[in-house]
């Protein structure tokens, strides 16, 4: 899906937990998430922590959209 969207000319970033899969499929801009069932907010943490994490990672994804790359890149999510 990500490839077809990029092929159509859209700048796209994939947020995924299984980065090796995203890479193999052919995503170019990738941002890691924390898990499969809850990519952007661990329910065992507080609502505030979940929000912080989500806001931060989506921010990294936005940075990725504005970054020129010349090969597949996994963006750093360290806070």
């Amino acid at each position, binding site marked *: *899906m*990500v*490839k*077809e*969207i*990029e*092929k*159509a*000319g*859209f*700048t*796209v*970033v*994939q*947020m*995924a*937990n*299984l980065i*090796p*899969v*995203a890479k*193999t*499929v*052919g995503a*170019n801009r990738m941002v890691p*998430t*924390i*898990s*499969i*069932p*809850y*990519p*952007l*907010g661990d*329910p065992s943490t507080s609502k505030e922590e*979940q*929000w912080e994490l*989500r*806001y931060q990672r*989506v*921010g990294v*994804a*936005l940075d990725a*959209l*504005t*970054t*020129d*790359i*010349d*090969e*597949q890149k996994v963006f750093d999510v360290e806070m």
Partner: protein
Amino acid sequence: MKKAVVYLNQFFGQIGGEDVADHAPEIREEKVGAAMLYNQLLDAEVTHTVICGDNFMGSRTEEAVETILGFLKDVDFDIFFAGPAFQAGRYGMACGEIGKAVKEEFDVPVISSMNIENPGVEVFKKDIYIFPGGHSAAKMRDDVKKVTDFGNKILNGEKLLPAEKEGYYQRGIRHQYFLEDETPAYERAIDMLLKKINGEEFESELPIPELDLVEIAPAIEDLSETTIALVTSGGIVPVENPDKIQSASATRWGKYDISGMDKLENRDSDKFKTIHAGYDPAAADADPNVVVPVDAMRKYEEEGRIGKLHDYFYSTVGTGTTQKEAARMGKEIAQELQDANVQAVILTST
């Protein structure tokens, strides 16, 4: 008698389903579930079964692999099997991760089985033997038979043939090999060249694997002027699932209006839930924003960092979905986005 170890996920290791996909790795000195079938068909005894939850292996890979290698340090074994993983993507990736690590650490043959659509095939076929398998556990017996037949050949020291003859996915590893008719390379090369010049079909002896990458789209210059859309393969839909998107092997997708919403309200509020059958829905049902981050995007919109969050998000289910269907749905969604003047996309997957 030679000895074998079998790796299974939480489901085939009889721990449970999605709710225990976080199950930490364990080793048992017995044959659990499918390990019994391996034991029947192998010219070796299965002495241990390793079991690990797919999400544990997917999210905490390093920890899982280290733990399992630690278990195996004191185990004496001649061969290692993982799966079969059928079309289960996370399980296939898990079999590949652990198989590759076991191969590197203990240098024993490692064999697995996966359906061609399993992403584990592309990622790990160079590292371990992977045989083509069925879509689902209905093919358990056939798939285990294939890998144990090949395992027995190795255990009995029989001569192994190239990948296409043995039936596993080609690893792209070159071996020195003498042709029966002993035609030297220069003659074969000239023959090939002549065929090429004459426009005839010829078969290269060194096929170059194709990496099908798409051209990288340029960076967005000014996000504050940009409309961004959210797309997901995580199966978030309005609770009534109006487009009847399938919970697995999806062929349909939907677009859902989020204009005026600060966030996605949850299942208890009768608004959004997930219909994805490939992961535990509890967290996504309780707060769909963990999969489709409408709330965070609204905040960035309010702050002026992005121009606009597109009025619709697009959703389908990415489990068991074939690459062909995913490509078609991607194309259709891209067309919609073009018509709506969207410039950038954040795609979330589970």
